[in-house]
């Protein structure tokens, strides 16, 4: 029997923890629940969940800051669940690395659908590259992406963490270098052919990916914007070779 996916619910409202926990357990997930940022850290010291459902208004820490810190250290998908509900919070949440955002009050089945969707997206490989790139190592402009370990190495051989979405997006670019890809194509490839309700997500993820790669957003040299068309990875890409020797064990986030 497959191990159930483990979801961590971080919310200071016990009624929300009960609701989300019950919903997910009834649908075959294993659920852990904590009320604040401290509880989140303690749990992450012990285990690595498959997905985190994160409230923004926590008693001890701002959920957005937690989200950013999480994203700089791990690839665990994050869904923000918040009653703040302002467009700006939604945008900032996605900018901070969340994989999805759902406002409270929410319909439990919508949350369930989004949890499943984000997990699928985090694990999915585009159909056309699934076979050929499962054990690939890509080299471009001094950077190395090791697909099996999902690890990106900088030209100085330092590890750079990527979110699940950023990793998927970078793989798509590396499989189609020097080819203009529309936002629809990027959505389609990187999200396992699921349409995301927020088209701007791709722009935000490209923006975040550029930052990870140290690409100047005003004058990008790696991922270029092609006006009215989309984006292109303007660099030579090679495949194969050894994993780089890591300069030190510390990892860089933003």
């Amino acid at each position, binding site marked *: 029997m497959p191990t159930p996916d483990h979801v961590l619910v971080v919310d200071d*409202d*016990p*009624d*929300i923890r*009960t*609701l989300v926990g*019950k*919903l997910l357990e*009834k649908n075959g997930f294993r659920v852990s629940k904590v009320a604040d940022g401290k509880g989140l850290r303690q749990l992450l010291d012990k285990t690595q969940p498959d997905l985190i459902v994160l409230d923004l*208004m926590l008693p001890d820490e701002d959920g957005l800051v937690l989200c950013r810190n999480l994203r700089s250290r791990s690839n665990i998908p994050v869904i923000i669940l918040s*009653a703040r509900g302002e467009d700006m919070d939604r945008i900032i949440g996605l900018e901070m690395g969340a994989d999805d955002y759902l406002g*409270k*009050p*929410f*319909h*439990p089945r919508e949350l369930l659908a989004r949890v499943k969707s984000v997990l699928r997206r985090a694990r999915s490989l585009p159909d056309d590259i699934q076979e050929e790139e499962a054990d690939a190592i890509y080299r471009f402009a001094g950077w190395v992406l090791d697909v099996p370990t999902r690890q990106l190495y900088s030209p100085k051989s330092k590890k750079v963490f990527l979110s699940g979405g950023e990793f998927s997006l970078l793989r798509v670019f590396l499989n189609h270098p020097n080819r203009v890809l529309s936002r629809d194509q990027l959505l389609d490839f990187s999200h396992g052919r699921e349409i995301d309700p927020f088209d701007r997500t791709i722009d935000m993820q490209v923006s975040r990916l550029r930052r990870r790669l140290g690409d100047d957003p005003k004058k990008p040299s790696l991922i270029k914007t092609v006006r009215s068309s989309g984006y292109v990875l303007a660099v030579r890409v090679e495949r194969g070779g050894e994993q780089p020797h890591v300069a030190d064990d510390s990892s860089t986030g933003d």
Partner: protein
Amino acid sequence: MSMPERIVVRIDADLAEIAPGYLANRRKDLELLPQALASGDFAQLRTLGHRMKGSGAGYGFDGISKIGRAIEEAAKQENHLGVEAGIAALAAYLDRLEVVHA
């Protein structure tokens, strides 16, 4: 005198186990809210309203989310009468509520 009209809410069978606990917590809110109002603790009133707003509709009780929103907004403005009206609306809602499991 006619009886007030019932508010019939159909909730998902999956929530049947936890809905009674949720409603019991709202009845506790009916004790906490007036206490917070009496002590002028608008931060606490805002938190209680915010939580009701965020959770009510998830359990199937849209009315609780609406009342929570009204209490949160009134508390933000330190509007004593607005909070009182919200508390009265919550009491009336819970009195008239009839839960049916779908």
